[in-house]
């Protein structure tokens, strides 16, 4: 039975939220409605409430950002994601990022305690770090996936190097870097390691997606924005050091296609 966030823990790295934290956030951070001013309170009291409201809004923004990234990363092997859901998530993500951007350029008396103005999130080259180049795009498929749609994914080239992920002090940056770390981890693994424990006899048809997932971030991208012009599988289109792990032996490829055709 699904109830509203009574005991569900915050999504992410096993960080336990205190009970009904989301509900508190929900209750505090109502949209930008004008607050009723209690005339009995002094001005400082008002400012305190304003501070708390801003903090709550920032907290909620943080929560929504984390959830957004997690939802965009989640995918079920072999199932196509809902395009509507993905578009809505990406739009929400963009809205939050735009807001963060404008906060940085906004007035100095905004209470941005949790945002380090110099954080890497806001640097232009960080955006590039997060861009992904899928094999299809690398080959120049104009209708293929666009890198900037997926700011949470690290670029293939950046996978190996750890210095891309600068030490991050702000919670918002850590949320994004968590996401990038997670996806970078996948691409660093050798293909065989992934297959070691998996009993593929029952899940023959899902071999390809899991193989792709292990090798690259590309099928995650494919399922978010399906495109009829996309080539489904182009292991030979390697374009950089980071794509090495995406390559499969042609023998393995033949073997998998054989299984698929038989099924």
């Amino acid at each position, binding site marked *: 039975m699904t109830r*509203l966030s009574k005991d569900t823990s915050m999504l992410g790295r096993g960080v336990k939220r205190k009970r009904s934290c989301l509900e508190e956030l929900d209750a505090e951070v109502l949209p930008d409605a004008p607050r009723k001013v209690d005339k009995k309170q002094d001005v400082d009291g008002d400012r305190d409430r304003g501070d708390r409201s801003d903090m709550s809004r920032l907290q909620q923004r943080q929560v929504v950002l984390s*959830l957004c990234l997690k939802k965009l990363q989640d995918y079920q092997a072999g199932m196509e994601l809902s395009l509507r859901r993905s578009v809505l998530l990406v739009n929400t993500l963009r809205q939050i990022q735009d807001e963060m951007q404008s906060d940085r350029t906004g007035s100095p008396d905004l209470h941005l305690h949790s945002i380090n103005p110099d954080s890497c999130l806001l640097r232009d080259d960080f955006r590039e770090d997060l861009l992904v180049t899928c094999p299809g795009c690398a080959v120049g498929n104009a209708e293929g996936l*666009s890198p900037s749609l997926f700011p949470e994914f690290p670029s293939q080239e950046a996978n190996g190097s750890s210095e891309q992920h600068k030490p991050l002090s702000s919670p918002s940056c850590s949320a994004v870097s968590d996401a990038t770390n997670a996806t970078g981890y996948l691409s660093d693994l050798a293909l065989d390691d992934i297959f070691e424990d998996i009993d593929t006899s029952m899940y023959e048809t899902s071999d390809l997606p899991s193989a792709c997932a292990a090798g690259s971030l590309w099928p995650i991208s494919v399922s978010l924005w399906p495109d009829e012009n996309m080539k489904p599988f182009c292991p030979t289109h390697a374009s950089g050091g980071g794509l090495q792990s995406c390559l499969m032996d042609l023998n393995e490829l033949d073997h998998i296609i054989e299984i698929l055709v038989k099924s």
Partner: protein
Amino acid sequence: MAGPGGDMQWCFSQVKGAIDDDVAEADIISTVEFNHTGELLATGDKGGRVVIFQQEIENKNQPQFRSEYNVYSTFQSHEPEFDYLKSLEIEEKINKIRWLPQKNAAQFLLSTNDKTIKLWKISERDKRPEGYNLKEDDGRYKDPNSITSLQVPVLIPMDLMVEASPRRVFANAHTYHINSVSVNSDNETYLSADDLRINLWHLEITDRSFNIVDIKPANMEELTEVITAAEFHPHQCNTFVYSSSKGTIRLCDMRASALCDKHSKLFEEPENPSNRSFFSEIISSISDVKFSHNGRYMMTRDYLSVKIWDLNMENRPVETYQVHEYLRSKLCSLYENDCIFDKFECCWNGNDSVVMTGSYNNFFRMFDRGHRRDITLEASRENSKPMQVLKPRKVCTGGKRKKDEISVDSLDFNKKILHTAWHPQDNIIAVATTNNLYIFQDKVN
């Protein structure tokens, strides 16, 4: 809720489906639709099956008659498929069923999953031929030398058999997931809509369709909006509408151009700035659009409200009904558990005076447009005694909870009513919970 003849009360009539709480995934109802006379009621489920119920009217001449819906036909409409090109499964879940107006003894309906639309013919057979010249009754061929006279085969009665056969398969026209199917008033064409495109088909032709709306950007990076629902006007065969994930509705005229990318009318209500939040766009996404029977209005359903639009006024709806406004302060939690993406449908009653939509906790809501009244009812096994009158439900939004009220935090968000249907002429409604179909009718006083 008062009707023109006095107070109208809703009574339980029937419930279909398994009783146990363990819901099999395949049994989850995904669409409900009455045919044009209301005699037949079709449901589609996640397992790709279609079940059709037929109304048996007992004692129709009596002032208080009960109509019962019994199973008429069950068939497997769609099977799961695998897209080898993209390495993705294609679900067999029936997204929509739409009946064709009846032209002869047989009934026809369109059923669709994410990728393929099928035209099914449902026909009755209650006679069989007997007395063939060349065959025995059991089918064995007679020795021609033993035939000395000719006879004319006669049709003899047999037990009623209802057969469903696929007459057309409309495939390979949709890259994205089909969300809507709508039969045109010309009874020759129909449209199918996916996330980015709408296609126009002729019912007789399966190997081609016309693309009439395409909102796919040249650069997918610029994609910010998808099509969520589409429907033909009930009388004007050149007019259709489609809704978007951004809360807009576009009305298109097929006479204007072959590709209806330019709308004739754009219906959009400016956002209330005091309600702005991170979830504003998500909750403005329209999940269903339905024309009124008289063709003058259309109704849209977004996450928190139902809006009635006059086709002649684009800048705002003429009526707005809050379905569950108490959820506005819970949007973050609903975002976390994905409920904020739930797609609720809505429907009109036969004379367009009342609209209905579903909510959570197996609640459903009716809004009486004329009398400005609304009611919340519940579809549950506890209220399932024959002809039991449904008691109105109330959600307590804050402060002291009164007796019989339920607090927002106690609502079960797993029990959602996404699909409802209203008989085209009578006050009979079909309400689908997760895996059960409830039929309610008004109590004739």
